Each structure stands twice: as structure tokens, then as C-alpha cells.
């Protein structure tokens, strides 16, 4: 059941009706049952994978919590010298439970998502030395497996690091992990945030219902009117890339960058709207990323919940690991102070982006995509003093609008280059497309026949208008919270805008038989 289907709207209607009529104490049960129903309706075969991850990580965290509770009493009663020993003992026992929970969760993710990729590459290596090939098997890819696995791992590590206590109720934990608005494409929420909001239940609020519905409608506009319309051109261009070059391919890559933003942020708006109607705030996932002036800023504004996850559970642990600390110390002792500093700041970034690429999918193109962004971030960190010196020498006014606009444009262009790896079928195709993009020349004849790209003039005009609306709304949101501002205005204006958005979706949206497509991030 896709988030932009009529069935999903009906499903949300039923859930909301039950959720607000059963009483606050039973709302968690309603959420858990709704999640089960949503996941089962999306494919029964994947359900055992979700249930196994949920059960194992719940039990592992409960075990860790139990170990800490048992030791806390002993630590309090112990002498100062003995406390350190007891703390280390508790940690070692908790680590065993953590390892089991993580191994099962990561194991399921790896087997489902990466087994075929690993076997294919192993066969390629075996082929080089003329050895027998292994059979390649493909398991089904459970819906949202990358997202719910990361949420489960985050919960387990938080309990292990004593950020909050383990949950005692399996129903409450399942309600969080499989929460139907965030299970497919995130945002990657944190358990303590979720639990805090559901504590004591949620009272019905017309304001939240209306506000959530507004956000959902804007999400539908982004997905059905902007993303799916642009998708016609993007799909045609990337299918026939070998016949295109120069400007048309560059236009396709730029259009894809807008499409993926409208698609992913549209989905997040829909699910955040649904959760808001249930009185639950999900983590913010986007903050108008294409207005960023550096790649570092871009990654703080795009897919925020994933970036924060990487920061908390990979970047910090790697940065403070014994390996990094010892290497830095060794190099510093040998007089290589600058190298030690660079290693300390660059190695964790490299690890984060390698994992980020692999997380996206089992293909070399994603690994290269991750390395491309790691190179950009590491390069900008190393060269920052050089750039600052050049700017000073050339007396560039870095606060000037023109300079800021150039920075934004440069960041967008770099981002578009990375998108080629993201969208192309494989690594070889991505490299070929990049080469063809660099070949000068405009295929005017094909450009004047938009039908070549699945477009006609009317569709092109509607798509362009939709993109302009998206940019204007984002630009306004950069300055003021648009929904809160609108909610303070008269009812006539609000309804006018609501009807305008609704009619735009109904008239210009791409839906129905033969139209529409799944969300891009659904496959991750």
C-alpha cells in the first residue's frame, strides 16, 4: 500500500477514527495493530523479517537494562575501588547482549540486501582464477528494511550507552519500530522522542488534524504534480542516454535532482502529516537543502534524520575509537602532527560515507557516490584555509548576495554530479553519462521535439510552473514558518489555498491507470 494511494487515505481515516475513540491508554495498542495491518497489506512475506528484528532487539535491550539494574545496586553499595571493576563487568556483560541483538538485525539486513551483490562479486573474483562459480540467491527485500533496522540499532545502542532505559513493553516498542508513517522511508526516529510523545496518550486536536492534513496535501502536490511529472522526462532521458549528449543530459540530471527532492520530501511531508494528525511529531528530514552554500551544509539539510544517525552511531564512535586515538598518538609522537590531525578528522568522514553509500544499495555505483561525497567534504575541510586566503587576496565580499548565490549554485552543481551515480543503472553507465554531459553541443532537433522525452508542450509548461511554485514556497519557508503564518490568517484565504492545492493535485497530478510511480527511496 503506497503512501500516495487512495487505499492509504482510507486506511489513515479508519486508523484515526479508532485511535481517537478507544481512549488514550489503548492508543499504543491501536498503533501497533495498525502497523501490523499496514505492513501485512504491503506484503505478508516480509512480515517475519520485521517481527524478528523487533523481537530480538527488544529482548537484547531488555537484557541490557536488566544487567545495568542488577549492577547499579551493587555499584552503589560497593567501595570506590570496587566500583570501577563492577562497572567494567556490567559493561562486558551488556556488550554480549548488544552484540547478539546487533548481529541479528544487521545479519538480516545484509542477507536480504547484500547477499546477491556479495556472491556476484565473489564469483567475478573466482572467475579470474578459473574456479567454480557459487550459486547466487536473492531473498525478497522487506519494505523499509534499511530504515527500521537503523532505528532498531539506534535504540539498542542508546540503551547500551545508558541514554535512556530499555522499554519493558513489547507492544510499545513494536508500535515505535514499525510505526506505519515512518517504517517505509523514515524519518529515522529515536525511541525516547516517540515514547515521550505517547506518554499519557494523545488528546484529539482539530488544529493538529487540520495542520497534518495541510502538510499531507502539500506532500501529494510535490509527489504527484512535481516529481512524477518531471519523472517522465528523467526516465526517458536516462533510458535513451546513449543517444543524447551535452545540454540535454545536463538538463536531465538537473531535473532529476529536483525530482528526487520533490519525491522524497513529498513522501516525508505526507507521513509527517499523518503522524501529526495522530499527535506525534516525527523528526525533521529536510530543511530546503538546495539553498545550501556548501556541501557540508547541504548534508545538514538533506535527509537530516539519517545524517544525525550516522553522526551519533558511526562518526562519534569511530572518531573516539581506540584505533583512531592510537594512530593519531603514534603519528604525533613521530612528529607528523598535521597528518595525525588530518587522519583524526578525515578517517571518520570516509567511514561514514562508505557506509552511507553501501546503505543506499548493493551496487558499486553507490560506493562511488559515497566516496565522491567523502572526497568533497574532506577536500573542503583541508582546503578551507586556502580558499579563505584566496578570497582575502582577491578581496571577495563573501557576504555579498552575488557571492552567496554563486556558492548556492556551485553546491547544487556538485550535488547534481553525484546524482548521476544515484540515477544511472550502474557505475559504467554513470561514467559514460558524465562523459557525454561534458561533450559540447545541443541536440537542437531533438530538443524541439519534447515528445522524444515523454513530454509535450502542455506537460512541459505545467511541470515548469509546478517547479516554480515549489521553489517559491521553499524560498518563503526559508524566511518564515509558512503553515503557522497561514493558520493565523483568515479562514477564507486558508480554504482558498487548500482548494487550490487540491484542484492542482486532481487536475495536474500524475495518477491513475498507467501513470504514477513508486517513491524513489522506497527501494532503499
Amino acid at each position: 500500500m503506497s503512501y500516495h494511494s487512495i487505499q492509504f487515505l482510507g486506511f489513515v481515516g479508519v486508523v484515526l477514527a479508532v485511535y481517537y475513540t478507544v481512549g488514550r491508554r489503548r492508543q499504543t495498542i491501536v498503533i501497533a495493530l495498525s502497523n501490523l495491518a499496514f505492513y501485512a497489506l504491503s506484503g505478508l512475506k516480509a512480515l517475519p523479517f520485521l517481527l524478528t528484528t523487533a523481537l530480538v532487539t527488544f529482548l537484547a535491550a531488555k537484557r541490557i537494562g536488566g544487567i545495568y539494574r542488577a549492577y547499579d545496586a551493587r555499584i552503589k553499595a560497593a567501595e570506590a575501588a570496587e566500583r570501577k571493576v563492577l562497572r567494567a563487568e556490567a559493561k562486558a556483560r551488556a556488550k554480549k547482549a548488544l552484540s547478539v541483538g546487533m548481529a541479528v538485525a544487521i545479519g538480516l539486513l545484509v542477507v536480504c540486501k547484500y547477499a546477491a551483490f556479495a556472491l556476484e562479486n565473489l564469483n567475478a573474483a573466482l572467475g579470474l582464477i578459473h574456479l567454480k562459480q557459487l550459486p547466487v540467491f536473492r531473498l525478497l527485500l522487506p519494505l523499509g528494511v534499511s530504515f527500521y533496522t537503523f532505528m532498531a540499532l539506534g535504540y539498542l545502542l542508546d540503551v547500551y550507552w545508558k541514554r535512556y532505559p530499555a522499554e519493558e513493553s513489547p507492544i510499545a516498542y513494536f508500535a515505535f519500530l514499525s510505526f506505519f508513517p515512518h517504517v517505509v522511508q523514515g524519518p529515522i526516529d529515536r525511541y525516547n522522542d516517540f515514547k515521550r510523545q505517547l506518554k499519557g496518550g494523545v488528546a484529539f486536536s482539530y488544529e493538529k488534524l487540520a495542520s497534518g492534513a495541510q502538510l499531507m496535501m502539500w506532500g501529494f502536490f510535490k509527489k504527484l504534480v512535481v516529481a512524477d511529472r518531471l519523472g517522465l522526462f528523467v526516465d526517458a532521458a536516462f533510458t535513451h542516454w546513449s543517444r543524447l549528449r551535452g545540454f540535454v543530459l545536463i538538463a536531465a540530471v538537473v531535473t532529476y535532482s529536483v525530482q528526487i527532492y520533490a519525491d522524497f520530501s513529498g513522501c516525508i511531508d505526507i507521513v509527517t502529516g499523518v503522524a501529526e494528525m495522530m499527535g506525534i511529531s516525527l523528526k525533521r528530514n529536510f530543511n530546503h537543502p538546495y539553498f545550501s552554500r556548501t556541501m557540508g551544509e547541504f548534508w545538514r539539510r538533506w535527509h537530516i534524520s539519517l545524517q544525525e544517525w550516522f553522526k551519533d552511531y558511526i562518526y562519534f564512535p569511530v572518531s573516539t575509537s581506540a584505533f583512531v586515538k592510537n594512530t593519531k598518538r603514534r603519528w604525533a609522537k613521530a612528529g607528523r602532527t598535521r597528518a595525525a590531525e588530518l587522519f583524526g578528522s578525515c578517517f571518520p568522514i570516509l567511514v561514514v560515507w562508505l557506509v552511507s553509500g553501501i546503505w543506499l544499495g548493493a551496487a558499486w555505483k553507490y560506493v562511488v557516490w559515497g566516496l565522491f561525497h567523502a572526497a568533497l567534504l574532506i577536500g573542503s575541510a583541508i582546503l578551507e584555509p586556502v580558499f579563505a586566503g584566496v578570497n582575502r587576496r582577491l578581496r571577495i565580499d563573501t557576504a555579498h548576495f552575488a557571492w552567496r548565490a554563486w556558492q548556492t549554485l556551485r553546491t547544487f552543481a556538485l550535488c547534481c554530479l553525484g546524482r548521476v551515480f544515484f540515477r544511472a543503472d550502474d557505475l559504467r553507465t554513470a561514467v559514460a553519462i558524465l562523459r557525454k554531459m561534458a561533450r559540447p553541443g545541443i541536440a537542437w532537433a531533438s530538443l524541439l521535439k519534447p515528445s522524444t522525452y515523454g513530454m509535450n508542450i502542455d506537460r512541459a509548461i505545467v511541470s515548469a510552473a509546478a517547479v516554480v511554485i515549489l521553489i517559491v514556497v521553499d524560498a518563503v519557508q526559508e524566511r518564515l514558518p509558512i503553515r503557522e503564518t497561514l493558520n493565523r490568517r483568515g479562514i477564507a484565504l486558508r480554504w482558498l489555498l487548500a482548494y487550490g492545492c487540491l484542484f492542482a493535485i486532481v487536475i495536474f497530478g500524475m495518477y491513475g491507470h498507467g501513470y504514477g510511480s513508486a517513491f524513489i527511496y522506497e527501494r532503499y
Partner: protein
Amino acid sequence: MEQILDMLKREFPLIDFDHEKHLMTDGILDSLAVVGIIANLEEMFDISVTMEYIQPENFESVEAMWAMVEELQ
């Protein structure tokens, strides 16, 4: 605490550590800066900042960092 303040002023001369009390919440310090601060604190006080302590509230202000160091010593 003065030691921490001196180190912070030396490493980040543009930040007003005397008055900023929400360094993490307001986005004044990013993850790279936090890792640098941790390395300095570990060296200065001969402590090991474990993952339990790497939480935004422990890096919000000089006072918060000092409280964390005291706990770890």
C-alpha cells in the same frame, strides 16, 4: 574550568564561550568541533570520554563540559 575555557578560546577564537550557553542546540559547534574538543579534554585531564558522555547536553556550555570532566575524573 578556566583550563577548558582557555583551550576553547584558543581553538575557536570566534566563539563567545563566556556567554554562549547553547553551543549544540544553536548549532555553534558541529560534530567535527566536538571531536576536537573531546581529544583536547582527554589529553588535558587524562580521561577517556566514552560514548555515554557524547551527548549534546554535555557540550552545551563550558560549565557542562566541566561537569562532565569532573564526573569522569
